[in-house]
């Protein structure tokens, strides 16, 4: 009993002492590094340097692979699985979802309008412009978010973000944009902040297994995890949405992010959470110069 009291007292006194010496305690938020101060900074230039370094990393890791091949994920770098994949692509499993997506896309809302009324060029051939940073609302707008915003603006209920109708619409829109080149801009301080937040997410270790996106998909990309080849991060967003045979259906990039987080035993974030949108923004910027090849099929 005596030792118990002494133990308690000792700890309490240490706590009080250290609290007195410094008032800093566990904070509820991470500190975002102030990236830049002056308004004259050329953000696009800074970002382009990142893109260059990113590309150079993969170019030296996979010296025999052409840049444009990276849109094909692990199949870009592995001849054996590539053969099987090419066979699957002859009768692609996303064909039916794309057709359904077109029907959904063209079906008028209750008010008589359609998705085409919400998007530039009637929504055709525009996939490469997403995600973009919207200076008015000060946030990253992904294609999936824009689809649901369109619905809500027309008095319709938003769709589920992971799989199903929305993924099919996204697949149709990607399919109509194939071979268009991504060129996502980062032109303002606010856009750069979102970009940097996405970048920080990409390089931060999380979950019980303590993995960052970059650990598997940059540092050790190309090596085997059990029987699976870790895909290089460059080109990740170009083929979205993706039909994964282990899902047995089409899913959005958000669905894949959540799955990845679960794999490292980190609690997944909400679909279209600010962090996931920023991550998609960063990843797509890193894939600038590559073409839209979504929807795609993967193991």
């Amino acid at each position, binding site marked *: 009993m005596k030792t118990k009291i002494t133990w*308690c007292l000792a700890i309490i006194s240490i706590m009080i002492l250290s609290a007195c010496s410094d008032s800093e305690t566990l904070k509820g938020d991470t500190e975002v590094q102030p990236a830049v101060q002056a308004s004259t900074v050329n953000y696009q230039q800074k970002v382009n340097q990142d893109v260059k*370094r990113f590309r150079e*990393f993969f170019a030296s890791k996979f010296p025999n692979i052409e840049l444009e091949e990276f849109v094909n994920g692990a199949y870009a770098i592995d001849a054996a699985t590539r053969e099987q994949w090419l066979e699957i692509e002859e009768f692609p499993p996303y064909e039916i979802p794309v057709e359904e997506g077109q029907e959904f896309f063209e079906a008028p809302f209750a008010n008589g309008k359609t998705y085409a009324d919400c998007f530039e060029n009637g929504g055709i051939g525009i996939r490469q412009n997403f995600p973009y940073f919207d200076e008015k609302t000060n946030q990253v707008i992904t294609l999936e978010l824009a689809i649901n915003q369109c619905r809500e603006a027309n008095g319709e209920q938003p769709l589920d973000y992971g799989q199903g109708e929305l993924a099919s619409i996204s697949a149709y829109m990607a399919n109509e944009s194939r071979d268009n080149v991504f060129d996502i801009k980062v032109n303002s301080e606010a856009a750069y902040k979102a970009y940097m937040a996405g970048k920080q997410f990409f390089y931060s270790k*999380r979950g019980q297994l303590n993995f960052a996106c970059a650990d598997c998909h940059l540092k050790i990309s190309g090596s085997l995890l059990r029987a699976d080849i870790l895909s290089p991060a460059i080109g990740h967003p170009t083929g979205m949405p993706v039909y994964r045979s282990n899902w047995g259906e089409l899913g959005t990039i958000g669905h894949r992010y959540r799955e990845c987080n679960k794999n490292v035993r980190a609690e997944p974030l909400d679909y279209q959470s600010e962090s996931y949108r920023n991550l998609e923004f960063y990843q797509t910027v890193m894939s600038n110069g590559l073409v839209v090849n979504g929807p795609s099929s993967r193991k």
Partner: protein
Amino acid sequence: MKKVFYAILFSLFFSSPCFANAQQSIEQAEKNLEKVAKLEFEWSTTAPLIQKAKKALADGNEKIAEALAKEAIAQTEYGFIQAEYASKNWQEGEPK
């Protein structure tokens, strides 16, 4: 480093005999979980541990409940450490 020190102190404090109480540990775990979730460094393993602890407590297994809740608390504290570490060192993973 200071924050890590506090985290350790914190866990010491709550693992000390003054707080040998399953209910309190569960509450602490839930509080920590909310914090670590806000930081986006929650582990997917923690909430299930808390659920198990609650069930054990409801079944009258105070000791097991306590142990499970403590483990949950420890996981949230590792999450705090990860958040702190990442905020300072994330750039180390960047291609040079």
